C-alpha cells in the first residue's frame, strides 16, 4: 500500500481498521472504514478516539465520498486524518483535498503515479467557491486561493 499525502498532515499507518458496525465493540480501534453508503454521523460517538477515517470509493464516479469528507470536517469537526482509497483518479486530487481528505492510497495502475497527483494539486491557481481549507479572497467576487 503506497500512500500519497495531499496536504501537510503526515499519513499514519494503522494495523487495526474496522467497519462502522464494529466500532462499538473494538475499543482499541483508532481507524474506521466508511463505505460510500455509510452515514458519517455514525462515527460521532467515537470521534475522540478516532485518528483515521478511510473513505472507500467503489468507483471514481461515485462522489459520495466528497460529501462524507465535508460532513466529517464541517459538521463533526473531525480533526484527525481522512484518507481516500479504492477507485480514485489523480484528476480528483484537488477536489479530495478541498473537501478535507489528507491522503490517498495510490491506485496500483497508471493512475497511481505520484507525479500525476502532485501535478493535479497544483493545476488550478484559484477556485470559485469556499472549501474546508483556510482560504482568502482573490476577488472580485467569489474567487479564493489557499492561505499559505
Amino acid at each position: 500500500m503506497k500512500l500519497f499525502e495531499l496536504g501537510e498532515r503526515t499519513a499514519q499507518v494503522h494495523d487495526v481498521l474496522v467497519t462502522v458496525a464494529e466500532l462499538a465493540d473494538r475499543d482499541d480501534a483508532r481507524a474506521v472504514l466508511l463505505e460510500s453508503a455509510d452515514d458519517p454521523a455514525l462515527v460521532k460517538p467515537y470521534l475522540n478516539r478516532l485518528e483515521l477515517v478511510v473513505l472507500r470509493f467503489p468507483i471514481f464516479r461515485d462522489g459520495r465520498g466528497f460529501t462524507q469528507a465535508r460532513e466529517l470536517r464541517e459538521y463533526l469537526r473531525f480533526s484527525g486524518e481522512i484518507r481516500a482509497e479504492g477507485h480514485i483518479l489523480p484528476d480528483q486530487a484537488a477536489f479530495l483535498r478541498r473537501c478535507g481528505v489528507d491522503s490517498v492510497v495510490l491506485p496500483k495502475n497508471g493512475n497511481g503515479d505520484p507525479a500525476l497527483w502532485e501535478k493535479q494539486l497544483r493545476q488550478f491557481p484559484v477556485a470559485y467557491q469556499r472549501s474546508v481549507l483556510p482560504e482568502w479572497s482573490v476577488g472580485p467576487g467569489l474567487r479564493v486561493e489557499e492561505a499559505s
Partner: protein
Amino acid sequence: MSLPVGHYQYDRIDRDFLQARIAEFEGQVNRRLDGTLSEDEFKPLRLMNGLYLQLHAYMLRVAIPYGILDSRQLRKLGEIARRYDRDYGHFTTRQNIQFNWIRLEDTPAILRELAEVDMHAIQTSGNCIRNVTADEYAGAAADELVDPRVHAEILRQWSTLHPEFTFLPRKFKIAISGSPNDRVAARFHDIGILARPGEDGAPVFRIFVGGGLGRTPIIGEELFDSVREEHLLATLEAIVRVYNAHGRRDNIYKARIKILVQAIGVEAYREAVEAELAQMDLERYRLTPEAVAAIRSRFAVPLLEAPSDADAVLAEQRRADPIFDRWVRSNTHVHRDPGHIIATISLKPAGGIPGDATSAQIGRLADLADAYSFGEIRITHLQNVVLGHVRKDRLRDLWLGLAEVGLAEANIGLIGDIVACPGLDYCALANARSIPIAQKLGARFADTALQAEIGALRINISGCINACGHHHAGHIGLLGVDKRGEEFFQLTVGGRAENGAAIGMILGAALPEDETVDAIARLVDCYLGRREGGETFLDTLTRLGHEPFREAAYETV
C-alpha cells in the same frame, strides 16, 4: 478594454484558470492515448469538458453562460464552425452551441481559440452542475423584476469545478429568471430559481426543486418561497449535498434529483435541506453584498438613448409595410425603455433545421449585434437568437439586414418555431430522426399568414424518450419511436413550460412518420374550426378537453 454588455468580463486570473483547464484536458487526452486512462475513466472526464462521441463523429458543446455572448465571441464561434466543422453550428435548448463534426485531435486547439474570447466547454455535459440558463430577455423586458444575470454568473462561478459536486449521481441543471412570466421553464429543472426584489433592496429567491423532462417528466415543487440573497449559495450547497449523498446511483434512469424528491416527498427533502443548513457554518457560505457588487461591476449596462419619435417612426414603418409589421408582431417583445424593443431572430426557417446557423449567418449576426444592440447577443432555450436592446426607429433596418441572410422568418412562438433534438441524424441514443419531421412540418405550415392566423402554438420533437426536444412541454409534442425498424411518432397535447407548467397528455397510439404531418394538420384544423373569440390552441384544448383532438388526429379519410 470596455466591459461587455450583458455578461461578466474576465480578468487575468479568470483567463489563467481557463488555460489551466485546457492544459488539464490535454493531459487527460494524452493519458487516454497512452493507455494510462481507460475509456471508462476518460469518458466522464471528456464529457465534463463538453466532448461527446456521437454516431458519426465527436461533438463539442460550448458553454454560453446564461445564453449571453458578445459579438467578438459570436464571430469566434463562426470561425470555429468554418475551420473545424462543416461550416455551421447548432444552438441548443440549454442556450449552448454544438459543433457536430469535430476531430478529437483538434479539440485542444479549439479550446484555445475559445479561450481567446473567454469561452470554454466546462460542464456542458457530465454528471455535474451544468451551464446555468437564464431568461432570454434578462435586463431588457418590461415585465422583469430583477435582472437575473449577475446571480446566474455567481452560480456559474460557484459551480465551476466544485470540489464536492463534480461526481453527482446524474447531471444537474439550474435555471434562473427574474420575471413573473416564466421564460426559463423553471419548473422543469433540477433547480429552478425565480428572483424578485426583497424589502432591503437585495433580491430574494423562490426555489423549485426536482423538476425535469426526460423519461420521467415531473413538474418541480416549491422548496422555499423566499431565500435571502446572503443564503443563496448555502441553500444551493445544502440542496445539492442532500442529493449527492442520497440520490440513486444504481440505475441511471432513476438517478436525477426528481426521483429522490418523488421518493421521499418534498416536505422530507425540505427537512433534510434544513438539517444541513442547521449544521453548516453559514458565515462561510455567505454571499456578501460586496461579492455581488464586485461581480455586478464586471457587467456593462447599455446606455439606452433613443430619439423621442422612435416609437412613431416604427409605427409608421409598420403601417407602410405589412410584411415587416407581421414580423414585428411575432418576433418582438416589449422593452423596459419605451424607445427600445427586443427582437427575436428565428433560427427556424420553413423547411430548415431548427437551431442551425451557418458560419456566414453567425458572422452577420455578430455584425448586426454591433450595429443595433451594443454587441450583445442572446441564445434562447427555444433555439433562437435575441438582440435585446434595439432602437425602435432602427428596427426596420435590422430586419432588412436579417432578410439578406435568410434570418427574417416571422414565426416566433408560432407553429413554425419548432424545437427539435438532433435525433437519429446525429445521436446514438435516438430511435427516430427528429430533423426531417421538423422540416416537413415547417414546410407544411410555411405560409406566415397562416401561422399568424393559427397563433401561439409550440411544437416540440424528441427522437427518443430521453426527451431532449422537450416533447412533454410542447403544446403539441412528438416522440419518435422505433417499431420494427420503422419510424413512428407518438403525439401529446397540452404540455407547457411557461407559467402553469404542465406535462402533455398522450393522444393515442403512435402514427407512422408519413401520417404524422397530416395528423397534426388535422389537430390544427380542429382547433381553428372550434376556437371561440381570441382563444389560443391551449385555450381551446382546455375548454373542450382532449377528445375532439384525439378524434381529429386519428380520423382516417
